[in-house]
């Protein structure tokens, strides 16, 4: 069975954190990056960003396009499919 998931493309990420906030916002209706299923981590030594999509992500089942994908303007997040366990 196929189920949608968030696919991250870290090389495109600019570290603006809008996805973190959008995810928390969609859950709580507040600007709340700490209730987010996405986390951006900056690698200071290499000047790169890592995108962590947590298990708690429900791919915004109630939305046509997940909030994090809607807000990301550099297309560092997209919708993919994975095999469910």
């Amino acid at each position: 069975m196929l189920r949608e998931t968030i696919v991250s493309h870290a090389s495109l990420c600019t570290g603006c954190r809008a996805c973190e906030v959008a995810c928390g916002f969609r859950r709580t209706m507040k600007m709340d990056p700490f209730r987010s299923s996405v986390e951006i981590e900056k690698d200071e030594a290499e000047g790169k960003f890592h995108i962590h999509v947590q298990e708690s992500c429900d791919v915004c089942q109630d939305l046509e396009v997940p909030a994090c994908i809607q807000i990301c303007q550099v297309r560092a997040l997209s919708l993919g499919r994975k095999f469910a366990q």
Partner: protein
Amino acid sequence: MVEEKQSSGWAGRLLRVNLTEMRCEIEPIDPYLSFLGGRGLSDWILFEESPHDIQPTDPQSVIALGAGPLVGMLAPGASRLNVSTKSVLTHGISTANVGGHFGAELKYAGFDQIVIQGKASYPMFLWVHNGRAEIRSARGLWGKTTWETEEAIRKELQDEKVRVACIGPAGENLCAQACLIADKARAAGWGGCGAVFGSKNLKAIAVRGTMPVKVFNPEAFWSYTIKLQERISRSRAAQILHRYGTHGAYGVGGPFGSTPQGVRNHQDEYWPAEKGMHLREIVFREKWEIGRTACFSCPISCTHLYKLPVKDGRSLIVEGVHTNTVRGLGSNLDITDPEAILLGQALINQLGLNTDGVASVIGWAFEAYERGLLTLEDTDGLELSWGNAQAMLALLEQIAYRKGLGDLLARGVKEASRILGRGSEAFAMHTKGQEMNEQTVRSHKGWALGIFTSTRGSGHLNGASLIERLGMEPERAKALFGTEEVARPESYEGKGKATAWFESFKSVVDSLGICYYMTLWIDLELIGLEDMAVLLESATGKTIEAQELLTIGERIYNIEKAFNTLHAGLTRKDDVGPKRFYETPISAGPFAGASLDLQKYNNMLDEYYLAHGWDLASGWQTSSCLDRLGLKEVKERLAQAGKLK
């Protein structure tokens, strides 16, 4: 103590820190909200609480920094932190402004605003987290660079997500060009605000929070934000900034290489292509770019991330190379070595210096050397000849540590030229004492007016309008500014009105906390007053019509103007700018022969004062203007000082 009730948009708290008494107090933000937040709120506190007769580095001096109601929200570019201080350079007001992530984190830590007074008896840093604040020892941090400071604080607090705004050695040594650096490369650069921090023995502010910010109408706010994001993504100007950064969009003559820019201490504004080609954005991109980085919630990400190999197989990650970097350290000093530009910007960030300030004062030193007013004896053997990149790098360190000639230069170009004398004042490039690193001053008359009238001293981020470059439909130009001439660079018509309008407009932008690159400053189709009114209402529930927002912006600018009159005694003569721009035309290129005409400039200045309702002869504010704006206290203070018309 503040009630725990949290408003929407604003975090709800103002933090007061007295470093002499080592005390932190929390107040509700509500009494100040008529000034929105950020710059407006900071300016009002500075105006109210700063005695006129103090030095900017006295303990009684006030630092007011804050993030407006849109910061930390998802509005495009809602990242900006405003830092208001009494300027070390002009003794008027300084409103430095910085992006990055510090402002958003301040909101999540539960605060909109911090007000700092007093002086600590030994180095301290302020730790702000989740509605609380404490003053901690920074003895172990004193002497460290901004990069070392951020790392040490994160280590001490055992949290890699702490955001730090700090000073480097330049701030500790009270350099006039010292700034506050956030996120290692974002600068609140203006007015020597780093020196004000240094004078208080305040090394840094660290923030971290997990407190959510409420949204008044979440669905309306979200849908309007998405609409704005789409509009920004369609904007040609935003696309250019996204693709090439400010460096590619405006630097080294702009995308077509034809935009005038400061050359050899602004002696000229034409830099031949055979020199400019060495510093084109593509040179840096192809050699060193490893990616891009954005401020909080920014769709444009105008900042390049460069990786520069240095000694022993190590590399330097350099951010913050913008159009002002390549102009200030490049054409302004006739330097064509791109690696030196990167090293220079990295040093500037580490030492906590303002790029424009040091570029200007080093340009002055190079010219003084060329004219024989400074000799090898004065420079400890350093040849300050145009194009000498090693001399530029050496002087950056000398300024920050006040060594050798650096001690003179660290006083700011106005004071340095007063001390050296012998005619060197004539080529000290500043307005009101604030050093300048500019472009298109001779060719674009409204741009010049915006720089020279700025309450910050100089700089193109207040009233200077890009309409002269963007163009404007004649009907729209006539409706807004009375004439379509406003879009012609060489015309002096309509520029006074446009400058006054943008001063008020940008006061609003800075008070809400969004970045200018999201606004109609760079593209007339981007965020305007109506958009800001919608964002503000859906975020906070506060309904303020577009025209009333502009009036609030006008109030804010008038508070700054009054601060300058009362604290620095500034008048009309301080709004005219350096003679060089009137006397020495551009030598070649598409704007060959362009210079400012003093008579026509003065006519333009008249139009500007009339647009504001200020007195033409003195440049002072008038009773009728301040009555119209409801600034009763400002009017009374000016009247008491005998400086009101």
